[in-house]
């Protein structure tokens, strides 16, 4: 066997610089360093983004369909009651105008009494909500609620009706 040191010469030796340069090439090929932007794979990002958008629209669609389905299947009592609730809200919105006007003592007293009545009705409605389940669409519950709503509307109506009567007398 030939002595390796005798056979190979100095020309066959790889310098440290060459060794490192060779490794750099290997490293680049096998273990590429990822910079911030190359971490994003454009294809995956686009696919993911599109999926998210489609999913969002699907959720919105499902919500809309579900909502309209629930509304369409609401019992009649509930629809009437919600109409009362809307009417009450609109009446209540008109109240501040009346309260702001400078009233006579008699009107003020009247308003005070009516406000007390409203508070009592509100308490009763609230109590009703607590006593019964939110999803209780039973006829009994709805009728009782409707009665309270009607009562509240009447009180509100009477408050609104006072406008233009004692008002003018006051002036």
């Amino acid at each position, binding site marked *: 066997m030939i002595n390796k040191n005798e056979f*190979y010469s100095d*020309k*066959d030796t*790889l310098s440290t610089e060459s060794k490192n340069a060779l490794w750099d090439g290997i490293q680049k090929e*096998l273990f590429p360093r990822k910079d911030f932007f190359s971490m994003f794979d454009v294809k995956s990002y686009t696919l993911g983004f599109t999926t998210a958008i489609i999913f969002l629209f699907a959720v919105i669609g499902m919500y809309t369909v579900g909502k309209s389905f629930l509304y369409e299947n609401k019992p009649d009592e509930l629809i009437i009651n919600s109409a009362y609730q809307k009417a009450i809200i609109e009446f209540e919105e008109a109240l501040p105008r009346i309260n702001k006007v400078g009233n006579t003592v008699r009107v003020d007293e009247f308003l005070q009494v009516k406000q007390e009545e409203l508070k009592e009705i509100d308490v009763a409605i609230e109590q009703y909500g607590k006593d019964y389940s939110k999803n209780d669409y039973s006829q009994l519950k709805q009728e009782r609620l409707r009665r309270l709503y009607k009562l509240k509307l009447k009180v509100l109506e009477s408050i609104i009706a006072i406008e233009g009567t004692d008002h003018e007398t006051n002036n």
Partner: protein
Amino acid sequence: MTEQKLIYKARAGNEKAFRKLYELHVSLLFRFLKQFTSDDDLVKDWVQQAFIKAFRNINKFEGRSKFITWLFKIGINEMRNEFSRKQIFVDAIIEDLEITVNSQIEETFEWHSDMKWLLADLDDEKKTIFILFEVEGYKHSEIADILQISEEKSRTSLSRVKQLLRTKWEKEAKIND
């Protein structure tokens, strides 16, 4: 850390372990492949490609041979591919000569450092067999595996090379005298 552990870690994608394997073997592969061309850059390319392929196929390395033997095999294939692409084959000047294998000559073969330049006349396969056997210390069975040839061919080729080197060396000596 043993070579086996390094290979195990490199299989799992461990860069540091593969770097260590590289450090251990790069010079050995380079100096071996350097015997086939004077172009340093070409040899560096083979070495680089050999390591890249070794890492990518490290799961196929069964550990039946040494890691360097496997690297030699990959490196030699790189060299062969390059030569066949460029159609650079060192035509064996001596190939045409009818030489009968003489086992006695093989046994009495003596290497002289001045003989190295005579290797340039050999074709690449014979040169490879000679270096692998005589310098790197591989057995014919290992050479057969590395070069994908039969053991018999490896043996015969080596014997021919030695005979040729000796004949040429003697001729040169006579001329110089």
